[in-house]
C-alpha cells in the first residue's frame, strides 16, 4: 500500500515536519541559548536570538554555588532505582495478565491506569504524613518508592503490550521442556522481550528524571535531585534567568543525550503494536 510521492509533495512534507519539530524544540533551544547570555541580554526586549556576547559565566557561577554532582547522583539513583524496582514488580504482573488472563484482567489494567488520572496533589497530604511516619522524608529510598509507584501503571501497560506479541506456544514449549515458572520468565520471556523491556526502561527513566511534583515536595537537601537544583535558581527577585537556564541545561543534558542515543529504541517502543 504505497502511494507515489512526488518530489514537491516530499519537500512540503519535510518542511512541515521540520517546522513542527523546531516548534516543539524551541523552548529547549531558547533555554540553552539563554544560558550563554549575560543576565542583561537574557531579559532584553526585543529578545536577542544569536547576536549576543557568548559567555560561560553562568555555568561557572552555578557550579560554584551548588553541588551539581550531588543533585545529578540523586537523580540517577531515584530514576534508576525506581525503574529497576518497577520492572521487578511489573514483569511478573504483566506476565500473568498477558498469558493467564482472567475475566477481570482488562478491568484491572484500566483500574491501574485510572490512578494516573488522579491529580497528584490529591494524595500529597496522605503520602506526606506517611513519609513523616516512616521517616522517609528527604530520603532517596522514599523517592525511589514513590517514583516507582507513580510509574508502575505505565510500566505494566507497556510490558503487557509487548508480552502479548510473544507467541504463547513458545512459553508452552518451555513448560513442556521442564521449565518451572521462574525459569520460563527468566530464560525465555525476558530475553525475547528485551527490546520492549529496554524501551519501557528508557521511558520510565525519563519520566522519573523529569518528575518535579513529588521530588520538590518530598525532598529538602539530602535527597534532592536535579529538578530541585533547577528550582533553586527560580527566584521572584533579582536577575537569575541566565543562571536558571544554565541550571536547566545542565539538568536536562544527561537525559537529552540518553534520549538522542536511544531514539530508535524509544520510537519503536512508543509505537509498538500500533501497526501490525
Amino acid at each position: 500500500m504505497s502511494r507515489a510521492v512526488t518530489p514537491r509533495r516530499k519537500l512540503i512534507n519535510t518542511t512541515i515536519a521540520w517546522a513542527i519539530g523546531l516548534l516543539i524544540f524551541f523552548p529547549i533551544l531558547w533555554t540553552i541559548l539563554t544560558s550563554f547570555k549575560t543576565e542583561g541580554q537574557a531579559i532584553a526586549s526585543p529578545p536577542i536570538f544569536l547576536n549576543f556576547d557568548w559567555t560561560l559565566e553562568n555555568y561557572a557561577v552555578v557550579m560554584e554555588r551548588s553541588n551539581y554532582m550531588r543533585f545529578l547522583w540523586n537523580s540517577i539513583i531515584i530514576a534508576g532505582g525506581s525503574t529497576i524496582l518497577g520492572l521487578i514488580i511489573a514483569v511478573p504482573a504483566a506476565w500473568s495478565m498477558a498469558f493467564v488472563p482472567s475475566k477481570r484482567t482488562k478491568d484491572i489494567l484500566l483500574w491501574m491506569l485510572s490512578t494516573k488520572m488522579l491529580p497528584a496533589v490529591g494524595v500529597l497530604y496522605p503520602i506526606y504524613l506517611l513519609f513523616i511516619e516512616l521517616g522517609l522524608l528527604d530520603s532517596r529510598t522514599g523517592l525511589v518508592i514513590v517514583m516507582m509507584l507513580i510509574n508502575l501503571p505505565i510500566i505494566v501497560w507497556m510490558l503487557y503490550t509487548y508480552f502479548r506479541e510473544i507467541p504463547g506456544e513458545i512459553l508452552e514449549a518451555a513448560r513442556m521442556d521442564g521449565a518451572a515458572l521462574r525459569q520460563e520468565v527468566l530464560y525465555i520471556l525476558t530475553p525475547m522481550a528485551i527490546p520492549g523491556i529496554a524501551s519501557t526502561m528508557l521511558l520510565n527513566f525519563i519520566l522519573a528524571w523529569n518528575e518535579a511534583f513529588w521530588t520538590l515536595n518530598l525532598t529538602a537537601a539530602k535527597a534532592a535531585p536535579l529538578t530541585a537544583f533547577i528550582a533553586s535558581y527560580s527566584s521572584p527577585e533579582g536577575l537569575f534567568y541566565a543562571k536558571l537556564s544554565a541550571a536547566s541545561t545542565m539538568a536536562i543534558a544527561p537525559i537529552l543525550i540518553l534520549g538522542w542515543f536511544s531514539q530508535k529504541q524509544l520510537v519503536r517502543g512508543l509505537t509498538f503494536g500500533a501497526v501490525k
Partner: protein
Amino acid sequence: MGQITLEKVTKSFGDVNVIPPLDLQINEGEFVVFVGPSGCGKSTLLRLIAGLEDVTSGAIKIDGTDATNLPPAKRGLAMVFQSYALYPHMSVRKNIAFPLKMAKMDPAEQERRVNYAAKVLNLTDYIDRRPGQLSGGQRQRVAIGRAIVREPSAFLFDEPLSNLDASLRVNMRLEISELHNSLATTMIYVTHDQVEAMTMADKIVVLRAGNIEQVGSPLELYRNPRNTFVAGFIGSPNMNLFSGAAAAEHGAATIGIRPEHMDLSTETGTWKGVVGVAEHLGSDTFLHIHETGLAEMVTVRASGEFAVKHGDTVYLTPQADKLHKFDKDGLKIA
C-alpha cells in the same frame, strides 16, 4: 514406559463442552494418530495429555501413575508444535540443550546428547545458527531434536507438518516414521490430513466433535469403517456414499463403495454414467462420473492408461464384497 490412559476425561471452555466423557488407552511404543476435521477437539485432547490444559473432570494416567494434576514439566512428555515454537534468541545448540539444562543434566552429557541429536537429524552444520536463519524443514528438525534429547516417555506432535511445502512434508513424514521405528517410543500425532494418519499410524483415533468415532489400525478403518463419517473421512479419494433406491436394493439406508472397488467398462455394468473430469495421476486415473442417478458425482479409479474422454458413457459395477452398508443412523450393518 509410555503407556497413557484417559479415563472419562471431559473438557469444557465455559459453557462449551469440547470433549464429552472420553476413554482411551494408548499402549507403550504405539504410534497413535488423532485425526478429524478442524474443530473436532483433537488438539485440545493432545493439550490435555500434555498438561497445557486442565481437564474439567476425569483422569489421565501416564505409566500407571495419576498425572491429572501434574504440571506439563513433570509429565515426562515432549511436544513438537505446529509453529515449531523454537526459542528465537537461542542457537540451535541451545534450543536442543534447553530441556537438558532444565533437568540440570551434567554438561558433558548434555554436549554428548545434543551432538548426537544434531547428527541424527542432519543439523550439525547449522548448530550455531539461530532459528531465524533456518528453513522450515530445518526448524522442524530442531523442534524434533529438542524433543528427543530428553528421552521422554512419549512424544506429542501437534500438526507438525502443516507449515511445510508438499514435498518436504512427504520427507518429514518418512523421517518421523523412521524415528519412531528406531526409538520405539510412544508417539501421539495430531493431524487433519487423513493421508498422514494412514501412512504413519499404528492406531488411528477418528474424532468428531470431541467424540471418538472409531479406533483402529489404518487398514481396519479402511476395510471396516464403523459409520458413514469414518467411511467418508478415511481413504483417498473419499468413499462414494449413496442413499435412496440404490441403497434400498441392498436393504440399507446408505451404501458406500470406494473408487478403487468398482469395475469400469465401456459396454456393460450395474450403473451407467457420463464421464466428467478425468484426473490423470500417471499410475491411476480418477474419473468423475455424472448422471448416474446415484449422487451428484461418483468417483472411480481406472488404470492409468484407461482411455476415455469427457462426455463418454461408461458403466460401473461395484465389487459385491467391498460394498459397505449403513443403517439410517449411519452405523454399519454387519
